[in-house]
């Protein structure tokens, strides 16, 4: 383009836009990374929740059923899924007692059986759900006690956090679009005479929009650059401190992506606003 930007709008016009976009993109990057971070935080919290559950097999009419169900847990559920650590002493003795019938006292009164199992796999990976599903298939009225309530609380907190971060991320985009389109409208009005003049001299609307885009892109690039540096630095420190640094690379990628989105948003909003504002020129 052979026309210097200053031909239509003084070049200092958009320097404050750079500052605004810088703030907004910094906020957006941190929000997006926090959004991702919440997944890891929840996993961490879930890991801290007691990784055991108790299983109660109700008393049955016949001993055989009780024995079968216990065996089922031990042999099938446990064996198939291979994520149960059980107390072999207790259960084995009980099972032996029922099946071998060595002790008359024990056989006479069928009792409910309690087992405490420790999940080998991570609770966060739905190991518990899978186990309970398997047992229920074999013993429909099995009673389990788990740390599910805690889990629900953690999920609720995670969900609220993610809603918050997602909302802020969306807000930062919307605020940027709104601010830029307002500023462009004002600038088009403020320079209406010069714009009309170069339009009458044969400058197509696309060229005028390009002039605006060019003059707004430079401060926005600077602003985004600063935001990117600040974001990377703070992410590095924060993630390293909290031990969540496995996502550092992903977060850097997100930061770059968001900066690119902001620059694109700026240019598209500018182009669109200028074209709309000049729509009525003959």
């Amino acid at each position, binding site marked *: 383009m*052979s*026309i210097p930007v*200053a*031909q239509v709008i003084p070049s200092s016009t958009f320097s404050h836009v750079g500052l605004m976009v810088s703030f907004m993109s910094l906020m957006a990057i941190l929000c997006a990374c926090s959004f991702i971070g919440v997944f890891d935080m929840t996993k961490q919290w879930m890991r801290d929740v007691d990784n055991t559950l108790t299983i109660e097999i109700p008393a049955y009419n016949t001993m055989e059923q009780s024995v079968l169900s216990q065996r089922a847990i031990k042999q099938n559920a446990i064996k198939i899924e291979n994520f149960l650590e059980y107390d072999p002493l207790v259960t084995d003795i009980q099972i032996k007692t029922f099946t071998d019938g060595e002790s008359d006292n024990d056989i006479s009164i069928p009792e409910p059986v309690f087992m405490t199992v420790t999940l080998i796999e991570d609770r966060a990976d739905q190991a518990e759900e899978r186990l309970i599903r398997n047992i229920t298939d074999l013993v429909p009225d099995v009673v389990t006690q788990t740390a599910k309530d805690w889990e629900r609380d953690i999920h609720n907190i995670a969900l609220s956090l993610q809603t918050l971060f997602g909302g802020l991320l969306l807000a930062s985009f919307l605020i940027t679009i709104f601010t830029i389109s307002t500023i462009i409208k004002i600038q088009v009005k403020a320079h209406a005479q010069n714009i009309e*003049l170069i339009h*009458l*001299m*044969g400058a*197509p609307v696309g060229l005028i929009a390009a002039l605006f885009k060019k003059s707004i892109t430079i401060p926005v690039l600077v602003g985004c650059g600063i935001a990117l540096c600040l974001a990377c630095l703070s992410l590095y420190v924060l993630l390293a401190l909290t031990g969540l640094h496995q996502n550092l690379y992903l977060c850097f990628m997100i930061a770059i992506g968001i900066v690119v989105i902001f620059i694109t948003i700026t240019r598209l909003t500018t182009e669109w606003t200028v074209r709309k504002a000049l729509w009525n020129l*003959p």
Partner: protein
Amino acid sequence: MINLAHVGLRYDGGPEILTDINLTLDKGSFHYLTGPSGSGKTSLMKLLFMGLLPTRGDIDFFGERVQNLSRRERAKIRQQIGVIFQDFRLIPHLNLFDNMALPLRLAHMSEHKIQTAVHDMAEWIGLRDYLKSKPAFLSGGQQQRVAIARAVITKPKILLADEPTGSLDDMMGQKIMGLFEELNKSGTAVLIASHNKILMDKFAHPSLRLKAGHLIS
């Protein structure tokens, strides 16, 4: 090049300023446009450089109805029309050089050629030493000379001049009229709105008169 047929113009909702205007500007034509103040000379000029669209009738540019022209085509045609505005319309924050270079830049001329063209032009209108000044630091006559230079620097196919000598002394006025005639000889269609009887007598050309919105030859 430009043809007006039964053209009428009214500013939004107001009375009709121009009524049933029929006019043709051909290659190499030279006309004066006269009429009392407020008769619509500037308004007619606006129709001729597509600053306004007619509210009635047809205007053709190079054989195409103005309403049928795309925005891009209109821009192309506007680049071939030089306009000297009654109120000069220089861009205040640009120096004289950039003001004069504007139409050349819109035409994508190389910066090297622009340098030569603008310096020659500035020399000719006697403002070579002012190229770095902003328009506000110039007298009315000097600003008018810049406005003229900007309009003719591209050697347009059509030149529309609204009171181009209003702020100039006789010497400069004649020099400028000479320039217009020179351009006209090379094919430019010239239309000058003017009150200056002395100059119009000295440089005799057919005259169009606007009276109560009508055009009388």
